[in-house]
């Protein structure tokens, strides 16, 4: 069994008084794609920058490809690439110049691969970076990130704000470039559909902590929604087994629960439910339930 490509062990990091990561532990296996989901400010970007060694943890341990990014930052950045939403690109360079420059400073640069990617993504080599659209700049950043054949690719919302066609091109480029060669991908985004399409495992972060972790099938199998119908108004403010979120709407109480099984049904029946139905949820619904629960909202009548 190969060792994990990325390990976070009780990692803590804050910026001034703002806690960005609070005791986060996770692991990414080689050849897999980890989806990192969370609202803006949940700590996704901080986690990726810690993994890339451009930020240092205040406490805890980060290991990338068996290396400590603090002590071996250069080695980590040789074998890992970070592709951010707004990648830093020199506006005065042309596409060809920035590819040439990146090639000159990266020991693992694959110029032929870079050229083939450039052609496939239809990038004009003579175009100045400052004249490119946001989507085209994202494509350039993608080439820069993958042309060095990274063993682990850290994606920080690289498709945010792009039109669907470009998003698809970028995502396909990423997936073709890395996991097929045994590399790992950490894909941080708040675009759940993108994550759902590419991720093998998902980690949901909220308020600097991991609130949910597992494969897509595990999560969808474990977390379901129970819809209970009562004779009168549905009860509010009750604690139900495995409850993540609950919304009362007239006679109907909808409960998202990690233990949507016989225990939950029995509990609902004891409260007077005359009918209980269970249903699977899309990832986005699960995420919304978690985030709403995390923001402290109680079940409410609509």
């Amino acid at each position, binding site marked *: 069994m190969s060792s994990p490509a990325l390990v976070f062990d009780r990692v803590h990091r804050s910026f001034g008084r703002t806690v960005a990561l609070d005791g986060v532990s996770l692991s990414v296996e080689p050849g897999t794609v980890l989806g990192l989901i969370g609202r803006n400010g949940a700590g996704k970007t901080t986690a990726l920058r810690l993994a890339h060694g*451009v*930020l240092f943890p205040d406490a805890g341990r980060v290991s990338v490809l068996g290396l400590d990014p603090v002590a071996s930052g250069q080695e980590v950045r040789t074998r890992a690439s970070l592709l951010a939403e707004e990648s830093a690109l020199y506006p005065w360079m042309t596409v060809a110049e920035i590819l040439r420059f990146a090639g*000159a400073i990266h*020991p693992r640069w694959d110029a032929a691969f870079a050229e083939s990617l450039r052609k496939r993504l239809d990038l004009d080599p003579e175009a100045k970076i400052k004249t490119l659209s946001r989507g085209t700049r994202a494509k350039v950043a993608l080439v820069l990130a993958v042309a060095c054949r990274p063993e682990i690719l850290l994606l920080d919302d690289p498709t945010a704000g792009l039109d669907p066609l470009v998003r698809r091109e970028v995502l396909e480029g990423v997936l073709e470039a890395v996991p097929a060669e045994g590399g790992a991908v950490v894909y941080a985004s708040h675009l759940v559909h993108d994550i759902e399409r590419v991720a093998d495992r998902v980690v949901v972060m909220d308020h600097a902590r991991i609130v949910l972790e597992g494969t897509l099938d595990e999560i969808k199998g474990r977390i379901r929604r129970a819809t209970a119908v009562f004779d009168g108004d549905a009860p509010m403010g009750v604690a139900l087994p495995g409850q993540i979120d609950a919304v009362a709407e007239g006679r109907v109480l909808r409960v998202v629960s990690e233990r949507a099984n016989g225990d939950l049904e029995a509990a609902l029946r004891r409260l007077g439910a005359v009918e209980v139905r269970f249903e699977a949820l899309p990832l986005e619904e699960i995420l919304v339930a978690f985030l709403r629960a995390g923001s402290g909202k109680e079940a409410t009548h609509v």
Partner: protein
Amino acid sequence: MFSALLGKEWRQLRALRLACLALGVVLPVAFLAGASAARRGLGPFGGHAGSGSTRTILLEVLPAALGMALWPLAALLLASQAFAGDRAAGVENFLLERPVPRWRTWIARFAASLLSTIGVAVGTSVVWVLFCRLAVAHSADEWSAAGMLLAAGLLLSGLAFLGAVGAAAVVAAPMQAVLLGLLLSIVPIALAFLLSTRFPSAAWHGTPLGLVLPWLLLPAYLVASHAALCRGEPEGKGRIARWAMVTAGGVAFVLALFFSVAPAVVRIEAARLEEGAVVESSKTGTAALAWARGGLEGGGGWILDLGTGARRTFLAPPLYSTSAWSPDGKMLAVLTGSEPFGGMSKNPRIEFYDDRGKRVGGSASFPESDWWQGLVWSGSRIVAAVSSDRKIGYAVVNPANGEVKDLGFKSSYWTLGLAGPTDDGRVFVARAATEPSLTRAADRTPEAQEKVPYALFRVDAESARLDATPVLRDSGIPWRAGRRLSPSGRYWLLDRNSGRCDVRPLLDLSTGKDVLPDARSDARNWLAGDALAWKETDERETWLLLARPGEMPKAVRRWSDLDVSLQVSPDRKLLLVEAFPRMNSLSAEETLCKVSETAVLARDLPVVSSPGTAVYDVARGTWTDLNPWRADKYVGEHWRRRWAGPRTLSRTGPGFLALEDLDRPGVVRDVIGHAE
């Protein structure tokens, strides 16, 4: 990798570099056009015929503008842009996120901005030289003056460059780096000014330490920049803290180095004795004060144990050339302005030491505007001149507690003089009856100043007052009263100058009558028993004359074609006589002075024509020849033998001080350095 980084940084500075070079081309044209327009009255304030000529513009104004303004500005801008430009443009992470060692990026930015600054300096210099060659003829001197301006500009640019490199590590944008860089550039200048003016005596070979050490801040700026940008977290947590720590550490290091080294440097510099030393001997011969000559402020000094030749106590500079041993040789009064670490106070003070070099008593100082001028012991008190605002007065200082009592009057310096002390500790003040006007030209002539009516009053040191009744009323030069009084206080050399040769009659203060001998003006070598020694010189020959009051002078030695100097021993019993080859012929005025009859009558005295040094025992009338050290050639005041004690001589010259005892001829004890 490095060439790619350097190329990227070089290209990124291209616009700024070209702008600076363009300014170098525009400046001469603009200056010349502006001056021409001003001369033709096209300026906003009308015509200025005196506006700079082409020569002045090209050889003075332009080098100053380049060296003092454009180059430092270019250095600030280029370094700031190189180190803060990517940050301001939001692209700093491009390199941080790639496997590029940060020190390589740092070096590339440093090299690119430095080469760009040099390029701007060279390019604008070439343009300037071309303009000069085409427009004006020029001399080597003019080139030299312009070159000095440009060389100073290069230094200033280097300072600005390093300041900007330091500043750009912690600010968000190049313009902020320019301003902070300017501030950082000023810090070493300000520190150098502060330390060198506040601690002028902490100097190495005449160069103040404070002027040198602050420049160590410049490498500290580089280290701070490197620590901020190349150490710690790449995205910058702790960057400002590291920078501040190194920068503050640099300042602290400079200050700590200065204050730890300064005391030693002060001592070492004093002990260099660049211009030799002066020895102040006491009558008892147990201790002496030696102080280093040099500078207006005077060097440091040492209280010497004459028995062993050891330096007992170091007295830090500035030690002013006013010091006095008490009559019993147990206490030394010195005038010092020294402060710790080579500092110098504006207000000098009198300090007291015992003959073992231990500080005793209090210290006496006057307000900042006042200045001590002379120290004379009167019993257990010190009488000293105090001057301020071109006026002089006297005060009595109690060494026990430093208490100062003013005698209560001040007047122009030529109207007052201090005489004494006598063997029994009396001190006198010669004070003009009226203060002559300075407004009339006649009053400013030497003859007029020599006819000032004055009276001689005894100073009552205990009560800090002058006696009401003078011991003498006469006319003369009160401010030259020093050493006019005989050791016993009975005889006074008058100022009745009969002609140019400055012959001084001797007055017996107890009878009010003139007595023999009439002595020459330099005859202030009082010997024991109120005897006088002086020399007389004609065109070729010099006589040493001795006389007791009431007796005819006696010639005791005669030299031919030699310069002769006399020094009386501290106990006034011996005369140190040095004869050097004559350096200059006598002036016309001096040759008018006929030698006295005694000297004429002594022409049969054997003549000495070889340089040499000898000690004359006044009581026995015997001569003892000494080693003729450096007697073959008089090389100035720096090389001298002086009395260090009643029977001890000092030898001093640049770099050394030694002692020799009359009772142990040929034995020379080195105190500082090695005597030749």
